[in-house]
């Protein structure tokens, strides 16, 4: 076989054009995960999708034809699952045992697909694959409908914050392409996951083996006029965290020479501009952004997702693990973290354990303070537990033993997700997400209770920059003062007192009531399951 590219091409009639898939463009990127059990046809669906989008080359197609005869489960026909089942151990067992990543592209978008195992004992692999996914494709066999594992898979993808799910109802040919079956399973599934807080749920009738509704409508299900699977993958919007407040976890201090001291990291959320005032957390020191270097050179601004290096206007002590944020913020203490955990390793976790927590670029020792309850993987209902074993999910309280800045997962994924590491064996023990970071003051303004301020907060949503809020507060004070006293001078003095006195009082308050010493907040009722993290 001569690997000559210019040799005559012998595309098979149903083999799509590779050219369409590789056109370079300013494509966006979507990551998705496929979940389902061994028999649902998950690998077949992914293999077929690679085939249909032209990601399979001739030599790979020949290998597939050979492998299909040797290992295939579809007689003499191509077994598309063999395109994605990688390790030889898996082939022998006939199951997928790890997360495999696959790549394909259309002119509109590049895709990274995580192919994950469906067996219960591999919950951890599924959660790993789902953690970076924008969209989850859940497979069900049309003959079997919604099974306990369908519910389990939905729970897991909801736990790690996946917002959009596609229920791929496969093997429609084996139920006679019956619309009634489709509608019944669809209704059942929508009812089942109503509490999981998905942003969108799409349900598609498929025959993965033959390609129906994958990239085109086959005509065998004329009653289905909705989008194909590829239509959805090309149009669902990935969530990019550019809206939130600016946070830059410092990964590395770049000091190539005495004249340059930069702080490198990937922007976790929000945007920043040269000249903006910043605070270094957890210490709370203030400075200003002097320069921003991006992979494309010096820039005036940077936003979420960009790997940057910034310099500051002052000689400020900043180290790996610190977080640079915009505006003025008080120092951040230790406090406690209310978290959800999924145990990944063989070690059983229990209250009293001393572990390492890696969050963003920070690694700090933590104490496993309390296990509030275990969450059933079936439907996330809480039940009492003393410890968590592999694949177990639980709600817990952790106490960092060094200052750490963290945010709730649904506010900021990079600063709200973490690993727990065994300090002795270095094994990764668990993955987790922050529900609440208690104790340390996170926002100065909502803490005071001046009626005007409280009133203001009602009308001025808290996500606006607090400098604007402060300025308006001062103006309102001036106005109120003017109305009460009738003299402009008195009003201005009142406003100035508020502008200077309030921060001073806050500082004093924090000096005498260190936030970290406040009791942990009551655990209360379980917050709504909003797809906001484990």
């Amino acid at each position, binding site marked *: *076989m001569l690997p000559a590219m210019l040799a005559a091409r012998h595309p098979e009639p149903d083999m799509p054009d*590779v050219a369409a898939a*590789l056109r*370079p463009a300013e494509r*966006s990127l979507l990551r998705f995960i496929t979940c389902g059990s061994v028999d649902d046809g998950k690998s077949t669906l992914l293999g077929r999708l690679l085939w249909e989008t032209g990601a399979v080359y001739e030599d*790979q197609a020949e290998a597939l034809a050979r492998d299909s005869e040797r290992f295939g489960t579809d007689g003499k026909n191509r077994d598309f699952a063999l395109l994605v089942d990688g390790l030889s151990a898996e082939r022998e067992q006939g199951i997928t045992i790890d997360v495999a990543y696959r790549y394909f592209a259309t002119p509109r978008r590049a895709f990274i697909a995580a192919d994950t195992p469906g067996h219960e004992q591999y919950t951890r692999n599924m959660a790993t694959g789902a*953690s970076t996914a924008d969209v989850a494709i859940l497979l069900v066999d049309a003959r079997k409908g919604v099974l306990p594992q369908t519910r389990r898979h939905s729970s897991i993808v909801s736990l790690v914050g996946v917002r959009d799910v596609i229920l791929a109802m496969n093997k429609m040919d084996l139920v006679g392409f019956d619309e009634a079956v489709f509608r019944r399973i669809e209704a059942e599934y929508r009812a089942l996951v109503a509490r999981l807080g998905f942003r969108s749920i799409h349900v598609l009738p498929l025959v993965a083996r033959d390609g129906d509704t994958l990239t085109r409508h086959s005509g065998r299900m004329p009653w289905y006029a909705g989008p194909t699977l590829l239509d959805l993958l090309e149009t669902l919007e990935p969530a990019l965290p550019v809206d939130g407040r600016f946070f830059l976890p410092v990964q590395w201090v770049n000091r190539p020479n005495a004249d340059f001291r930069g702080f490198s990291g990937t922007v976790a959320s929000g945007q920043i501009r040269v000249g903006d005032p910043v605070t270094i957390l957890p210490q709370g020191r203030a400075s200003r952004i002097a320069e921003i270097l991006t992979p494309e050179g010096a820039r005036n601004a940077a936003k979420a997702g960009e790997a940057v290096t910034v310099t500051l206007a002052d000689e400020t002590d900043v180290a790996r693990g610190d977080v640079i944020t915009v505006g003025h913020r008080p120092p951040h203490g230790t406090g406690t973290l209310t978290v959800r955990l999924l145990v990944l390793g063989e070690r059983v976790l229990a209250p009293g354990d001393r572990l390492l927590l890696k969050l963003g*670029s920070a690694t700090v020792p933590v104490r496993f303070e309390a296990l509030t309850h275990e969450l059933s993987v079936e439907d996330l209902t809480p039940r009492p537990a003393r410890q968590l074993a592999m694949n177990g999910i639980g709600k817990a309280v952790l106490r960092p033993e060094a200052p750490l800045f963290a945010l709730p997962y649904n506010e900021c994924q990079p600063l709200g997700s973490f690993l727990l*590491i065994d300090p002795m064996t*270095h094994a990764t023990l668990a993955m987790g997400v922050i529900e609440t970071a208690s104790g340390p003051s996170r926002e100065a303004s909502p803490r005071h209770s001046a009626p005007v301020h409280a009133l203001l907060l009602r009308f001025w949503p808290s996500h606006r920059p607090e400098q604007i809020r402060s300025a308006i507060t001062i103006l309102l004070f001036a106005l109120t003062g003017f109305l009460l006293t009738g003299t402009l001078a008195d009003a201005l003095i009142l406003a100035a007192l508020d502008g200077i006195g309030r921060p001073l009082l806050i500082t004093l308050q924090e000096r005498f009531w260190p936030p970290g010493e406040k009791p942990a907040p009551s655990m209360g009722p379980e917050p709504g399951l909003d797809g906001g993290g484990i």
Partner: protein
Amino acid sequence: MHANSHLRRLEAEAIFIFREVFATCDRPVLLYSIGKDSAVLLHLALKAFAPGRLPFPVLHVDTGWKFREMIAFRDETARRLGLDLIVHTNPDGLAAGIGPLSHGSAVHTDVMKTQALKQALDRHGFDAAFGGARRDEEKSRAKERIFSLRTPDHRWDPRSQRPEPWLLFNTRKAQGESFRVFPLSNWTEADVWDYIALENIPVVPLYFAKPRPVVQRNGALIMRDDERLTLLPGEVLETRIIRFRTLGCYPLTGAVESRADTLEAVLAEMRESRVSERQGRVIDHDATSSMEKKKQEGYF
């Protein structure tokens, strides 16, 4: 280009990985194999640590059978970028005269690549080695982690690999253990070429078509890069217009007939191609799952 585009997101991810390793490991090294993936890897490493220079050495494991143009390109690149280049050849293999023509691809690869790499990593005490492997190259690599933990004797055990949720990497390891780190894990061959074009990254001229002396052997077009390749009975040396899609030891690397003599032409040709890049690599054809077996033995 838009900052949220596919390539910029891949670029940011790779830079993040470089910085994470450098900030947490004692002695990293970049494994430089001179090919297009290495060119992109090196380019990203320079970006990750700019404006400073590359803060760790670059290692080339030289089997003694690389194309001469590769070696010239390597030395020119090291000079142009001011790299701390380490070249290592297995002295035992050299003394024993191991080569792909006399000993076959399996023995040659094991002694001159796998063993040589372990020698170099051990000699310099490197505890993290960046490689340019991509998950789309071969099926067994689809499950490789970005951080691959190796035992003190460099073995890879699929069962002991750590989960990598989000972009969170556990970079802690015991004395003697090391990481292989693959910042290009999520790149495809098309991404690599598109990025080379976008960033104007120099690559070895062997990727571009030119008349070159070749012989047909075992169904592949093998370039006669020096006189060590002697003709077997019935073989004829001919000049054909060829180029390479991947580069390695010249007797083990199949060429493709092509007229693509510029980057634009290569990009256009690749988009038309119906054959995967690894087909030109002789070592992959040994057996199904052959890469997986080699990886467990410590081959990159």
